[in-house]
């Protein structure tokens, strides 16, 4: 039984079958990549997993509990964190505040009326935030406004905000989209480190095959809303069905 079990998911948008009978199992302690050509339904699937979309049929079980019908913040509290294609951070707040907020969310739940306590008195939270910023090499930038960070730093900040919650499953939506080669390499190294040091299960949606094959332990190939194959990276390379999905009809 995997950490995340997706069974028979269907989702239609008007006449378009975005997801058709998708089954997916993400094992604990693996990096699982979901790849596929444009329009294959990768983002739709991700949005189902985080509660942004509700599928027409099927079930999504996470850690033994159903995810369907829950709001995004409830799903996060269950232990699923998400990194977005364009970093979603609190731009008007300082870097330090950005990482303190998930610390509070982890400790106090979805809502707590802590209006009288001072932030400055929250030593435990501050230490946690400092530690994660040190881990992603951003400690010296902690007083900067998040909106003034470079694109790569915003990505790292968002990653830190997810990691500090110590999620059971980290979902990454094209973490290297639009990045320069050097930045891509840095991100790959950062993710590898997260995987080995923290043992967090990761699901990655990615276009860049270089990234996929350097990180993934399992790969699912989606095409036209249905999983084609699921296998190890070595077996996926050169798989005829995958070639067909990416390059159109196989040429002899």
């Amino acid at each position, binding site marked *: 039984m995997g950490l995340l079990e997706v069974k028979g998911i269907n989702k239609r948008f008007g006449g378009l079958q975005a997801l058709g009978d998708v089954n997916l199992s993400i094992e604990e302690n693996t990096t699982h990549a979901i790849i596929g050509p444009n329009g294959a339904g990768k983002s739709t699937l991700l949005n189902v997993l*985080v509660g942004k979309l509700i599928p027409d049929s099927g079930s999504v079980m996470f850690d033994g509990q159903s995810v369907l019908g829950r*709001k*995004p*913040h*409830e799903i*996060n*509290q269950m232990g699923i*964190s*998400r990194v*977005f294609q364009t970093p*979603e*951070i*609190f*731009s*008007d*707040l*300082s870097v330090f*505040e950005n990482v*303190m*907020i*998930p610390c*509070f*969310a*982890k400790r*106090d*739940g*979805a*809502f*707590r*009326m*802590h*209006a*009288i*306590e*001072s*932030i*400055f*008195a*929250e030593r435990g939270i501050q230490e946690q935030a400092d530690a994660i910023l040190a881990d992603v090499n951003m400690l010296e930038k902690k*007083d*900067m*406004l998040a909106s*003034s960070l470079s694109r790569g730093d915003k990505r790292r900040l968002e990653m830190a*905000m997810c990691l500090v*919650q110590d999620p059971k499953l980290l979902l990454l939506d094209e973490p290297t989209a639009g990045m320069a080669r050097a930045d891509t390499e840095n991100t790959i190294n950062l993710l590898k480190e997260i995987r080995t040091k923290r043992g967090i299960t990761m699901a990655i949606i990615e276009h860049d095959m270089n990234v996929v094959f350097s990180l993934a332990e399992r790969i699912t190939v989606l095409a036209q809303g249905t999983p084609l194959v699921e296998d190890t990276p070595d077996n996926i390379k050169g798989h005829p069905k995958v070639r067909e999905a990416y390059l159109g009809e196989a040429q002899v």
Partner: protein
Amino acid sequence: MLGLEMKDFRLLLIVIGLTMLAPFILNPFPEGSEMAQFNAGYPDLMQRFVIFGIFAIGFNILFGLTGYLSFGHAAFLGAGSYGAVWMFKLLSMNVLPAIAISVVIAGLFSLLIGFISLRRSGIYFSILTLAFAQMSFALAYSVLTPITGGETGLQLALDDPRIFGASQTATGNIPVPSLFGLEMRSSYELELGSWLFTFNAGYYLAAVFMIIAFYMSIRIFRSPFGMMLRAIKSNQTRMSYTGLNARPYTLAAFVISGMYAGLAGGLMASMDPLAGAERMQWTASGEVVLMTILGGAGTLIGPVLGAGMIKYFENIFSKINETILHGWFAFLPDGLENFVVAMVYPFIGKGWHLTLGIVFMLVVIFLPGGLVQGGQKIAGLFRRKKAEDTKPNATEPAE
């Protein structure tokens, strides 16, 4: 100190000092002099400064922190006023129970309106709050006349069934609001040379409430709760994907600011025990928005400055009339005098709104952070001149 950082504590001390010494500070010109009309140190206006200060501080907790622009906060102020007057009519002329009930009523009322309005955000939220406030105004004006007094407003009468205290004074008058016998309208006048300073009991009561309100707002700004509210303003998507439910946070902020409005309404009724429906009208809601933006939304002291500035304009600028203008420009040759007076006249007296409008536009265009940002810019200029070697701190949050 008091759970505050040194910087915030210093700000609190400054506010305490200014409010306590306001009768001196606002009366800088000797009685009977040419400039005496610019004196603002009379009880009625000073009371308005602090009461609208409270209103704006509370509004800023909602608008400044979460960015939810409510256009209906006057409804809570009005509800608070009605509650307070009813307490005077039914219970006692002591102001404390009246103020307490006004806060409670405004809190419950804002819980109801907030619960419904906060299902939407942005312009739709603003329109919903505006609709509710106008609805309340219309109801208070017509259908609810038995409770609100309708067009004439809710007033005390000689036959009020007051449980604690008499319906009439010994001389057959309506009793006045008091704090354990200290009448709100009573004043102590101090004459120093040609200066006259008035210390009014009602003003000091309201000032103490404003200091408490200001202190509470600093605590909220510096609390994890306040940080969550700023996070809501910044990015709601990240908020929910971080496991936080924005709805109860915004509702709590809405109710807190509603209670501040109720406190202001209760104090208003305590100074002058009557309440009218026009306190709920949308112009009154719009006024507090102007105060907050003019002073600096999201800053601690801004709303108080904005409230003070608008009330000063409203009461002092509007009193200047044509005769006074002619007096000022009498030194000019006749034709020129008439010309200058004609040019200046639209901006003063009844035209004070025009001046306020121009100031407001200038502030919004050149100082989006309000008067506080203006102050910071001026302070920054001086600091740069004094020392170039200190580290620049561009990300310092607004004070």
